[in-house]
């Protein structure tokens, strides 16, 4: 647990907010969590600072009815701070943490794949020729549907492309 405490202190929240590009609601929940955490810490500090010893002798001298003081003393003695059953929480946190770590690994793998794809597209962009050099075969390979359409046109003996004349004009010499 100590490492966790040290790690949590080292977390530089401002960087977490800005650089990780988290969604708005994650940042809000993070901030709420941090506020609750600091609030709890402050209260804890404040209360732990207070004296927990009760000066029973002084009370006995003031109060006549010492029975009340005895009762208070008994109460004080068998008063135990309620120890929350933290282990359940911890286990939950543990499982959550395991799941989180596993999800983190998963996202990490996904990010690796994305990285590779980005690399490929980057390479593609670098070696891709400008639009002027786009050849008919490239588009044909990219969209086999067009190739099939033209093949059926050829089989049927249809050579005119509807709408081509209006859009691209007619290079007709006659």
């Amino acid at each position, binding site marked *: 647990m100590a490492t966790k405490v040290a790690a949590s202190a080292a977390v530089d929240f401002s960087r977490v907010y800005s650089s990780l590009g988290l969604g708005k609601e994650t940042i809000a929940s993070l901030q709420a969590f941090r506020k609750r955490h600091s609030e709890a810490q402050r209260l804890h500090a404040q209360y732990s600072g207070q004296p927990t010893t009760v000066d029973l002798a002084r009370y006995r001298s003031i109060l006549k009815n010492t029975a009340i003081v005895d009762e208070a003393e008994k109460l004080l003695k068998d008063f135990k701070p309620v120890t929350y059953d933290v282990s359940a929480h911890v286990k939950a946190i543990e499982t959550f943490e395991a799941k989180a770590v596993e999800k983190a690994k998963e996202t990490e793998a996904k990010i690796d794949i994305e990285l590779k794809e980005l690399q490929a597209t980057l390479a593609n962009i670098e070696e891709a020729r400008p639009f002027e050099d786009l050849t008919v075969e490239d588009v044909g390979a990219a969209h086999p549907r067009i190739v099939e359409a033209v*093949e059926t046109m*050829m*089989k049927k003996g249809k050579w005119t492309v509807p709408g081509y004349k209006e859009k691209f004009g007619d290079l007709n010499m006659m």
Partner: protein
Amino acid sequence: GLRKWPTPFLKPMWPFMAAGTITFYLVAKLQDAAVRSPEFAKDPRNPYAAQIAKEAHH
């Protein structure tokens, strides 16, 4: 070369191919007759000279 497209070749061309064989046949007969005609039979440039000579013997 580039890829081959399935445009029909025989569908539009069959009448002209049939007609082609007809004219081919006619011209073949015309040529055989003309080559053996007296005017060209003896011509030195006649590539069919040997053939004609052999036929002449029968």
